[in-house]
């Protein structure tokens, strides 16, 4: 077996050194009834690289990669072009095969990356500080709500109908078992909702999304003021990180906590994971944050260095009093995010955001001219909702058969609701001929 360096002679000599006859003797604490005398039956034996490549290659070949056809899928995961240097750098073994930086003297690489990542996330969101990552945007959202509960000592969260349903469900699942109240507004695909009216003295937080799941771009400044007046926290969710290159950031609107998905930068859509949750807060809330934090300090010689810090919030120190149970997070995805953003830089990132918006504007105008299609959004970033004269899921299936991934049927996200609505996204990867393919396809199918 190519990954196991011990020879039979090694094993023999080692058993002798230990003073046992066989490896099985080392398993003597396992109850007899559970101790097997040989490999588990019914499973194949080992394979060489070539055979594994064939087996997995055959599975991969049954899929239609989004990049191989015109694709307009969004809904919380966005296909962007990832510069070649990103994947090259994250595959350096010193990054890829290191553990969490528990020994700072030999982990300054990872630690400096985390410090830079935290800074980038804080800048993008317009917040004071960010942590070293969460699993994904949805879990970041749920953790943000729990943090708000701790900070306000209240136990009610109001979730906007514009919140991504997976984020909503992740949060309400926590609510059910952890024991806090959620008020969930119905989806409002065509426009606003009166969330402000629901905020009362028992409200720990209000969770809104920008752009919302239907693509609407919103200004939450007034809502932030109202929340502050009532002692509730405003949590702003962002599922498309590239939008932060164009829109007023949540921090400038008055958000207390930002929970975002960072996949768009550096990470492939990858059938849903692994992604990277971004978590940013105002300074005063730092000590109630979940997850790891990297901080700057000096070494014994007075030189600048970095360490994991404020770990008295974390499970390995605080155990049952920890702010969260999170341990392993999304280190390598955070690195990919960070490298992509470093490559883009200030000008490149803003340019990328404008380009995404421009592509979506063009697509919206193109689709608005298709009979049977109505664009619902006046304001959007790179994704918007259209109303079709036929059920969207069936239209999407038909067009998939013709080699166009037309978007995300709203009913896929909202369990059968709003069957006539389709979410359509455009990014810098969307070409004019892709748009033609979608417009023509829709025109035919809706005829």
């Amino acid at each position: 077996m190519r990954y196991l360096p011990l020879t039979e002679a090694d094993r023999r000599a080692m058993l002798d050194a230990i003073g046992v006859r066989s490896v099985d003797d080392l398993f003597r604490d396992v109850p007899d009834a559970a101790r097997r005398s040989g490999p588990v039956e019914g499973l194949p034996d080992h394979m060489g690289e070539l055979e594994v490549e064939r087996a997995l290659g055959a599975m991969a070949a049954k899929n239609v990669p989004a990049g191989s056809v015109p694709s307009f899928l969004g809904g919380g995961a966005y296909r962007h072009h990832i510069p070649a240097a990103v994947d090259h750098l994250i595959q350096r073994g010193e990054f890829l095969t290191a553990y969490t930086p528990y020994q700072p003297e030999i982990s300054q690489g990872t630690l400096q990356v985390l410090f830079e990542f935290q800074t980038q996330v804080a800048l993008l969101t317009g917040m004071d500080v960010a942590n070293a990552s969460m699993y994904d945007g949805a879990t970041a959202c749920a953790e943000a709500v729990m943090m708000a509960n701790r900070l306000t000592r209240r136990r009610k969260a109001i979730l906007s109908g514009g919140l991504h349903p997976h984020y909503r469900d992740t949060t309400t699942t926590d609510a059910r078992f952890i024991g806090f109240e959620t008020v969930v507004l119905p989806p409002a695909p065509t426009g606003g909702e009166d969330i402000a009216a629901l905020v009362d003295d028992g409200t720990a937080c209000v969770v809104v999304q920008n752009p919302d799941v239907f693509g609407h771009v919103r200004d939450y400044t007034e809502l932030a003021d109202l929340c502050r007046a009532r002692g509730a926290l405003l949590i702003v969710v962002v599922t498309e990180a590239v939008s932060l290159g164009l829109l007023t950031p949540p921090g400038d609107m008055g958000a207390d906590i930002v929970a975002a998905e960072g996949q768009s930068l550096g990470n492939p859509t990858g059938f849903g994971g692994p992604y990277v949750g971004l978590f940013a807060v105002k300074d005063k809330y730092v000590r109630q944050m979940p997850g790891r934090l990297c901080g700057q300090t000096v070494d014994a010689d007075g030189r600048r260095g970095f360490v994991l810090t404020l770990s008295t919030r974390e499970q390995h120190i605080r155990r049952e009093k920890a702010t969260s149970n999170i341990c392993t997070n999304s280190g390598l995805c955070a690195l990919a995010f960070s490298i992509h953003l470093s490559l883009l830089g200030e000008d490149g990132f803003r340019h990328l955001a404008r380009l995404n918006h421009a592509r979506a504007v063009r697509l919206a105008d193109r689709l608005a001219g298709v009979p049977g299609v109505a664009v619902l959004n006046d304001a959007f970033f790179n994704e918007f909702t259209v109303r079709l004269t036929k059920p969207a899921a069936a239209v999407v299936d038909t067009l998939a058969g013709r080699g166009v991934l037309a978007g995300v049927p709203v009913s896929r996200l909202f369990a059968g609701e709003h069957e006539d609505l389709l979410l359509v996204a455009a990014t810098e990867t969307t070409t004019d001929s892709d748009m033609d393919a979608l417009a023509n396809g829709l025109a035919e199918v809706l005829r």
Partner: protein
Amino acid sequence: MTMNAQGRPTAAFAGESAGGEETVTGNRGLRIEEPLIFEQDSPGMTGVDLPAVPDAPLRLGTVRPRGRIGLPGLAEPQVVRHYTRLSQKNYAIDTGLYPLGSCTMKHNPRLNEKMARLPGFADLHPLQPQATVQGALELMDTLAHWLKTLTGMPAVTLAPAAGAHGEMCGMMAIRAALEHRGEGGRTRVLVPESAHGTNPATAAALGFTVDPVPGAPDGRVDAAALKAKLGSDVAGIMLTNPNTCGLFERDIRSIADAVHEAGAYFYCDGANFNAIVGRVRPADLGIDAMHINLHKTFSTPHGGGGPGSGPVVFSESLAPFVPVPFVVHGPDGLRLVEHAGGPDAGTAFGRMKAFHGQMGMFVRALAYILSHGADGLWQASGDAVLNANYVMARLGDVMTPSFDGPCMHECLFDDRFLKGTGVTTLDIAKALIDEGFHPMTMYFPLVVHGALLIEPTETESRAGLDQFVDTLRALAERARAGDAAAWFQAAPRLTPRRRLDETTAARKPVLRWKEGEGRAGP
């Protein structure tokens, strides 16, 4: 400079004086000082060329386009160099033995990386029509089959993003099952004192009262104490097996029986499944739920702190509550059930995260599993246990093993061998760093004093282990020879940075770079 008691320069003296030699740049040969990326700003520069943006009005409604963000601009060569230099300040499995107990730092095969990057996996959108992702669902289904077969358990969820997330998922399923039985009032969870911090943190987050169970003198949980704590208010136990002392819980069957008799559930922390994979099926131990860290047992890379993946296997009694999404076989092939409360989701308790789990990790784990096969996994767990016992046997006379008898995949020492030397577990760890090794896990588990937990894994050669053992022996002997405390406390000397001031870091947190604040320190 450091002298020993005789005034003779110690071995590290040479290194230290070399380190003390000034260079113009502050660099030391291959060891290069790398500023923050923010300190390398070349305004207007970018490493990505994009097509021009047409000059059309924005469609942002009342939201204003944002102003300057404050990101630095660099060209691609500078960026590549920045991250390459940073990478060189990291220790990694690729560079050496990484015996971090409980963390399972085994070799990460590159085939797995190659497979995960096939466009047929990496370039799939999670919300594509399911007819276009049948191969991806087949991969999930195949991995699920392996995990169920290797554990003997009837159900699995692939959704959780890491071990701790799996614990959360398993304990939620237990709560859901209790509520379903009308026994939601069970509020106590028994957790051994040796447990990983995530166990009590998970139970407490879910509103359970954590009731600690003491250990027995043999390093196992005190089964009698545990059984005595069982009662009608106990929801379950969270037991790690093999446990965090690297020992198999011999009484696990009788514990499971007692737990079930009391109407409670048995959650097993499966972080150490790598010790027994392919040799012992958790189902045969009476477990109701167990997470498997794909990033430990099945070698998906740790990436400097993730991503991970923490599938949870379930017994018959908990299987109905498995969260969404999951894959089912239907007339048109495989299908994902995505909505809890939906017609085909049964009593699924909810959702753990967005989309369908850590697909990229599933591909890597399955590549690892297929590479090993049933026979290779048998060999791998055997070698992992053999390596750990070999290390323990070779160190037993100079260090103090905490418990008698064979260990599983990791061996635990405490700091009795350092008594009276002034040298601590931390000092030994830092001295190992100068010798070119990553230290073992320190001060965990909490049940022995000054713990040193060594997990070599099966991917280390005997020669590699011998070198590590010889080094550790020499350090232990040096510590015990006396008057070595100052020398140890000055370690590490040969690293890009020496010991860091963690107290100040926590007291006056600097968690980000800020424009205009310049750089701290030289």
